[in-house]
């Protein structure tokens, strides 16, 4: 009976309550409280390449690439477009950059920006006929589209067919690639967060919740969705273009399922809706996957196992959990 009279109570930390209204920030402690979770990870990420050996730097690039894809996924998801086809964005960017370099010998300073923009436009154009779809249906179409393009490349043999295009221009220095990836990743992260918190993002989120209702507010949801597709597509294409030049190779496997599923897994692990979750997720997943490489054959199975266990234990996602622990505490309270 005794324990029935008690219950756990969740409360915001005092410092959060105070610093929520940003004008009231007074002490350095409060400023630190607000800024630390943002700046410490960024600083770590920026300094890390200087201390890592070349192989782990490659892994870091990989993590940023997946991070970009995860961010782009999360961005689309924020406006109700659940995609299972990040590899479409990735592959388009990769192929555009690769083809520009291979056939026209354009340098990376041209191919990467062009691939980013053209990739975004192309993604929006390709997906605009199916923008009306919602939920699973959109997910499935996006899942199929890259597979379709992959088969098209395989069947028609364009862009080198199954062999792909190799010996493309690389980056003059390893560090350039690394910092390009990291900075692209960070810019996306903070840009997306900013967009989503602005009125523009508000509308996107509202479209996710109830597009009929948004329409009744006189907003052209299809145009907005196309814009969202462009933004997400550009982020994904940037990742693809970067990868192409980093490995000096592009092939049909850039449309592979891995590039679609892994980012989603990263978001599921980190927690959707905040971008920080997506970023965190990919920063956990990719290095984990590489660390497991030493295990050989069982690697993927163990990797999946870890993924499953962590999602089951924290269905809300790492980030949400951490954020809650950071901002709130619990205490036992007696019920009157």
């Amino acid at each position, binding site marked *: 009976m005794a324990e*029935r009279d008690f*219950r*756990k109570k*969740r409360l915001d930390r005092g410092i959060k309550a105070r610093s929520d209204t940003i004008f009231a920030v007074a002490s350095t402690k409060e400023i630190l409280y607000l800024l630390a979770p943002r700046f410490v990870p960024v600083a770590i990420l920026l300094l890390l390449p200087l201390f890592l050996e070349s192989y782990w730097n490659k892994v870091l690039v990989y993590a940023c690439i997946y991070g970009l894809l995860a961010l782009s996924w999360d961005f689309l998801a924020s406006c109700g477009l659940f995609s299972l086809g990040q590899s479409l964005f990735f592959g388009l960017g990769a192929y555009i950059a690769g083809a520009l370099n291979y056939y026209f010998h354009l340098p990376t300073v041209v191919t990467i920006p062009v691939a980013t923009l053209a990739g975004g436009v192309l993604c929006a154009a390709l997906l605009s006929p199916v923008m009306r779809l919602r939920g699973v249906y959109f997910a499935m179409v996006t899942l199929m589209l890259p597979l379709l393009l992959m088969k098209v490349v395989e069947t028609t043999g364009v862009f080198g067919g199954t062999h792909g295009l190799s010996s493309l221009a690389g980056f003059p220095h390893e560090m350039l690639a690394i910092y390009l990836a990291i900075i692209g990743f960070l810019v996306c992260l903070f840009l997306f967060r900013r967009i989503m918190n602005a009125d523009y993002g508000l509308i996107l989120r509202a479209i996710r919740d109830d597009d009929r209702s948004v329409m009744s507010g006189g907003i052209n949801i299809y145009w907005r969705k196309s814009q969202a597709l462009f933004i997400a597509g550009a982020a994904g294409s940037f990742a693809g273009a970067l990868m192409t030049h980093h490995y000096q190779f592009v092939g049909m496997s850039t449309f592979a399922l891995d590039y679609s599923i892994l980012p989603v897994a990263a978001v599921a692990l980190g927690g959707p809706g905040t971008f920080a979750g997506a970023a965190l997720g990919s920063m956990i997943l990719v290095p984990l996957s590489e660390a497991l490489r030493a295990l050989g054959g069982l690697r993927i199975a163990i990797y999946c196992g870890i993924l499953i266990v962590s999602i089951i234990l*924290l*269905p*809300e996602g790492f980030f949400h*959990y951490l954020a809650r622990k950071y901002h709130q505490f619990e205490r036992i309270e007696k*019920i009157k």
Partner: protein
Amino acid sequence: MEAAEHTTKQPNGAGDILLSGKHLMVFFENALALNDLSIEVRRGEIVAVLGSNSAGKTTLMNTISGLIVDMKKKEQRRGGVRITLRGELRYKGEEILTLKPSERVKRGIVLSQERHPIFRDSDVLENLKIAGYLKRAGNLKERIQFVFELFPVLKKLRRRKAGLLSGGEQQMLAIGIALVADPELMLMDEPLLGLSPLLQADLARAIRDIRQQGITVLVTEQFARPLLPVIDRGYVVENGMLVFAGTRDELFDNPEVRAAYLGM
């Protein structure tokens, strides 16, 4: 507080205590949705719970029907809002506060939820058939027939997908579903919502018919005039607390209740 202890004089014909809730408390995280609420329903009665918006009517219904147990479980699994339940809830003398909804349906407590959540993708007839899940064949046909008699419109619409029905039609169906599930204690959460005046009156009559079949009814409303003629007793809930309890006449005579819940 006093109101909670206050037992009204029993209208004739009412039987033993079917359901009694004592000191019910429900927290959604730190918000108190039901605050020390006590309620009692006797067999064969029609009892109304009146309250304005967010008074806690739905929470009370969910607590009695057990849906809240399920909500609690789900929220817990994914670390969402924490729901805390306290108090005592007895049905035919048995403590049921933590019982699963399906167990409660087996014991005869069936809820018709507010704002008509029906099985959108099935047609009307199938909706009613599904409702007979716990009833082995037998009188399923009869019960469906009863619902059709109650709401002749539904019979006409029986082949239409439920999700395409109009708001009012869906409301009728929602009530029909609960009826087919063969309740002993029928909980109705805002059944009048969206019904035309004609149908509101019909429903009030129907509730009386239902009682005649031996079903006890607990119904919530914000605007109770159409129901007034048929109820025996009523409770008034505000902010999760009981503020008034009384027979129909007592409710009718109380000027505040009249103004707030009867529109007179």
